[in-house]
């Protein structure tokens, strides 16, 4: 699904990613953990195609195709989805209109007709139910005045609507109380299948109690320094990151 080979990326000539290798197969859940400033969010943004970052070396392959040169919208058309750590507030665009536009633009890129309005409505209703989103919420301006939990639920709602092949969840657990966390995780698990993959970027282990990863990677100073199974996350939660730092420098 996703193959990242020796990825180096920088912003304003400052190197942030310094040789990332990552292989994600269909049906897998990967967690990327690491201390603040290790490059986790940069990795998510670079995969999604944020133009502020310069890829200096290496490649990102999605289903074998190099997506380096593609714009963020084209990557989305190919099935990449990023759940934002800080979803942007867009006054004047309702959640419903936004998601309609996103779906129909994606269909247009694939040479498909617009989704029929009744089908769209039905899908919106189903997915909103899955994430326990109130109907009134959908007519509000996108993310404007949303609580932290509402923003994140709205991100996963969009993911449910767009049905991506590769979903990257960037700190989706931050700002969530335990109920919201459960709703969000439950949503992600229901969307999970043998044909798609999820990369969870997180600081803490608690989200991983609900979305259980097949692989856990530790990102430090722009590199993946340790990989393991779900148990690695528990170890990090118990012991922090210092022991890995020592292990790496040793």
């Amino acid at each position, binding site marked *: 699904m996703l193959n990242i080979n020796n990825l180096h990326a920088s912003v304003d000539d400052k190197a942030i990613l310094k040789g990332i290798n990552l292989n994600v197969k269909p049906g897998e859940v990967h967690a990327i953990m690491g201390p603040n400033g290790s490059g986790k969010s940069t990795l998510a943004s670079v995969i999604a195609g944020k133009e502020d970052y310069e890829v200096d070396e290496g490649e990102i392959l999605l289903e074998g195709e190099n997506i380096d040169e593609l714009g963020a919208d084209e990557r989305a058309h190919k099935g990449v989805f990023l759940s934002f750590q800080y979803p942007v507030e*867009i006054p004047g*665009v309702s959640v419903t209109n936004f998601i309609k536009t996103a779906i129909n633009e994606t269909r247009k890129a694939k040479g498909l007709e617009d989704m029929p309005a009744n089908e769209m409505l039905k899908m919106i209703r189903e997915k909103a139910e899955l994430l326990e989103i109130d109907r009134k919420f959908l007519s509000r301006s996108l993310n404007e005045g949303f609580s932290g939990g509402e923003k994140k639920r709205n991100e996963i709602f969009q993911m449910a609507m767009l049905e991506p092949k590769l979903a990257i969840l960037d700190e989706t657990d931050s700002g969530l109380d335990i109920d919201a966390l459960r709703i969000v995780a439950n949503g992600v698990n229901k969307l999970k299948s043998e044909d798609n993959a999820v990369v969870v970027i997180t600081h803490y282990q608690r989200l991983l109690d609900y979305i259980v990863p097949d692989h856990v990677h530790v990102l430090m100073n722009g590199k993946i320094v340790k990989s393991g199974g779900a148990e690695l996350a528990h170890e990090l939660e118990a012991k922090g990151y210092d022991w890995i730092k020592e292990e790496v420098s040793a």
Partner: protein
Amino acid sequence: MELKDKLISSFMAFENNVDVDSPIHDIRTEAIKNFEDEGFPTKRQEAWKYTSLDAVLKHDYSVFPKHESALEYKDVKKYFIHEIDCYKIIFVDGKYSSHLSQTTHDDIDVCLMSSALSKPKYRLIIENYFNKIATKDGISSLNTAFSAEGAYIHIPKNKLVQKPIQIIHFSTGREGALLLQPRNLVVVDENSHVQIIERHQSLTDNPILTNSVTEIFANKRAIVDYYKIQNDTSSASLIDNTFINQKQESIAKVHTFSFGGKLTRNNLNFYQNGERLDSTMKGITIIGDKQHVDHNTLVHHIEPNCESHQDYKGIYNDSATGVFNGKVVVEKEAQKTNAFQANNNILISDKASINTKPQLEIFADDVKCSHGCTIGQLDESAMFYLRSRGIPEKEARALLMFAFSNNVLDSVKIPEIKTRITKIIASKLGVNIGFDL
């Protein structure tokens, strides 16, 4: 011959063709003297500092159309809000087109200024209202001097006019360069309500200059909703002078949608002559190329407990230039005034520019007055967010620009106008997406 001299000498010919016993004969004579003294405004005048008329005044305009041009409805239907039943007052090259129009004298008068100026039954209204609030500056005086044709709307008291009234001025290019000077009078009496849609539409590449004057009187508890759709061709220019006099508890709203034309200058003046009344002026301007739009507004708060709301949004691309000059005067007696003004702008290109200037003169001490101007670019993080959801760059830009301006549409009471405006915006932004919000 310079245009000014040509106009002054044309006035003689004009006076020979109209009724010199008309009650407005003296008004016209005085107006041409004013124009002779003042001439066209220049950039030396503070109110015209950022708008030069030089380029539009250099053409050899015909002042009196010689031809009668007929238009087929099917050819111009798209310029009408044709989805709803309306009264229509339509002009082609300055001449009334009876077959495109639908006027009425049932209970209300929706007809022609030429009738109102000549028929005795309108004499009292003309005496009481004509040229009572239009200013005496050069450009308005020029219109007054030649005032002969336009829309005349009189709504007597307690009438809720069911159908909107559309006023459209077409120009066909048969005259070469053409100067049009429509003169409109709208009198809405106590407790009555009227909706008016105005549009100036050139169908030619020949230069067209329209210098329009509209006087609107919203009497006690009257409601006037006025929509101006300005989406003309790149060879057409418009100077729109609109004056609104409000009496107590009246509500007057003017929405100005400026999407085209070579040069557009809107002089919009509200005079609040009564208590507890409400004035609203809103606008969306989206222009590109070398287009120029200038909104020059005035709200004169004269009496206590009144409100005014101004909200103008502008999006400027290419080498387009914009001006917003919003003056709010609050007289000493006008206590408890609430006056709000906002002008927000987005510059898409490095060559585009906007000059925005709030001007508040407050002489009362117990008032709420706010104003805010912003000039910015599109938010790049919002762009990335939209694009990451599969919305291509052009569509994402369009969606953000629409979102930026669409709160102006909240107060538009005719859904078909809202739909039309969103369609024009989509086509201006070069996208085919529904902004059905």
